């Protein structure tokens, strides 16, 4: 299979207030992350708030200038390229359906904007036709095109956001927590729609979420992030049933089971304390401050992100000895 997206040693630092005049402080939002996504595949990315998963997504789509590292699209290094030709191929669906639609534009113009920029139509009628098709494709109807975003519910707005992403006929979509802001009943509809669209259009997704149960359902492979680093990456079945990293294990033990009897008997791994500040991450393994197995080695040496089984990567000193 060929790799559509490949990220090598991506680092994304943001300048932070404070620090001295000569030494600036940085928030290391993403710190040395490498992975790839095959064509037509869905890679899930999970982790708690502030772990850098959204930043990773936005860096790939080049909303930020990466501090260092490389991003490849279909084999070409796009880290410092003029993005305009790639803007047609890579799209994003945002988390907050209320903030991601311009309140002053009609739904038709929101969906049609990318087509205007890339000259994807010849006549006004063709533009209208395309917008109507997109709206119908995401389960809205053509009369919605003349309305404003405030007239829609959260789920409908997210559908508009998806229609907008599809307008340029992209190959790759970053789904940045697209269902986190929605009701559970709507979440399922939207997730199913993502799957149907993927099948019909051959899309590749980077699916970001903090809810492992959602990611597990849609992803082929799953990456787990903690404090700016990937700690484990594996096939989604493998990760769910044979997770190796203690952080992943605690996440998986937190997935709700809709049977109270099993749920009660299950042993949950509850982590102590909070995520350390990304301004000043712990030495060595970043997870060691909350890890049950942490030893002296973990504080001294940063674990390597290595392949321990076929396609199963993990960064831990202890989990496979």
């Amino acid at each position, binding site marked *: 299979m060929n790799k559509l997206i490949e990220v090598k040693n991506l680092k994304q630092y943001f300048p932070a207030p404070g620090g001295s005049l000569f030494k600036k402080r940085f928030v290391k939002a993403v710190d040395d992350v490498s992975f790839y996504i095959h064509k037509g595949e869905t890679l899930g990315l999970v982790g708690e708030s502030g772990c850098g998963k959204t930043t990773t997504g936005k860096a790939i789509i080049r909303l930020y200038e990466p501090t260092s590292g490389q991003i490849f699209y279909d084999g070409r290094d796009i880290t410092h390229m003029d993005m305009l030709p790639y803007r047609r191929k890579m799209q994003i669906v945002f988390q907050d359906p209320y903030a991601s639609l311009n309140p002053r534009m009609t739904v038709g113009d929101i969906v049609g*904007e990318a087509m205007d*920029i890339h000259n994807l139509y010849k006549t006004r009628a063709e533009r209208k036709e395309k917008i109507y098709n997109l709206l119908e494709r995401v389960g809205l109807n053509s009369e919605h095109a003349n309305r404003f975003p405030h007239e829609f519910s959260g789920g409908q707005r997210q559908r508009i956001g998806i229609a907008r992403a599809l307008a340029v006929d992209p190959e790759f979509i970053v789904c940045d927590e697209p269902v986190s802001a929605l009701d559970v009943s709507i979440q399922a509809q939207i997730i199913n729609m993502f799957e149907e669209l993927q099948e019909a259009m051959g899309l590749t997704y980077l699916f970001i979420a903090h809810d492992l149960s959602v990611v597990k359902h849609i992803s082929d492979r799953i990456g787990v992030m903690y404090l700016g680093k990937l700690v484990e990456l594996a096939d989604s079945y493998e990760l769910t049933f044979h997770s190796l990293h203690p952080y992943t294990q605690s996440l998986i033990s937190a997935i709700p089971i809709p049977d109270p009897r099993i749920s009660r008997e299950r042993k949950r791994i509850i982590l102590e304390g909070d995520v350390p500040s990304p301004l000043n991450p712990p030495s060595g393994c970043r997870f060691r401050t909350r890890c049950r197995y942490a030893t002296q080695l973990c504080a001294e040496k940063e674990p390597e992100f290595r392949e321990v089984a076929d396609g199963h990567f993990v960064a831990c000193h202890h989990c496979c000895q």
Partner: protein
Amino acid sequence: MMRVQITKRTANVRPRKKSRPRHIHVLKNLTFYLPLLVLTLLVFTAVFADVLAPHDPVAVSMQERLLPPAFMEGGTKKYLLGTDQLGRDILSRMIYGSRISLSVSLAVIAITASVGTVMGIVAGYLGGATEALLMRITDISMAFPPMLLALLLAVVFGPGFWTVVLALSILGWAPYARLIRGETLKLRYTDFVAQARINGASSLRIMVKHIFPNIVNSLIVVITMAVGMLILAEAALSFLGVGVPPPAPSWGYMVNEGRSVIDRAWWISAFPGIVIGLVVLSGNFLGDWLRDKLDPRLRQL
């Protein structure tokens, strides 16, 4: 915060029933219809001043000086609002004065609002060195004493209509730039602007299509406040002798003319003063109303 605002506003606006008689509707929306009437009258008066004014606004008649308004003892029907120290008709002078007040305000608003908006959006959206430079210029403009500048300009160019416009415009754009920059900063990091960039939109396109439409509300509110401020500023300049030069009648100039005889002839200052207040107030009310109407979130109500 946004949501709180909406609930607060929606609570005040009741769904309009179709069956409600017209006059009730007008009464309930008096804060809109009254200011609209005042401002329409103002524009109408300014345009048709030649036809409406009963007398020549600059015709002096020494026998008929300091006549009180017609409804007072000693007043005549010839001069409805009385006359000033030189026997000139107050009503006619006010009618002609509306031309000056209106044209000065509109010219200044057109210049300051467009310059300030462009500066504010560019500074706010581009950021970095551009922003630093533009905002320092803005700071300097706001720190400069406007009356001093006006006097300076009057000395250099001589008093006149365009000197007044220039004097009020040259510093007047700064508050717009400040406000618009602030609004732009809020919008710059929204998801819909990020999305526009992902769609490949140029900075110009983002500023015109995504930022500008979302700051129009604030702009309208500031502009309507400005109408009042500018009429007052123009009056102040007239007082200092650097306004539109006499005998051309301006409201501010008339208020100041009556100052010395206010104990004997209050009407010289009072009537132009009332009109200034009325216009300023109307501008503010209309601005509020427009803001509500132009907000698409409230349009469906």
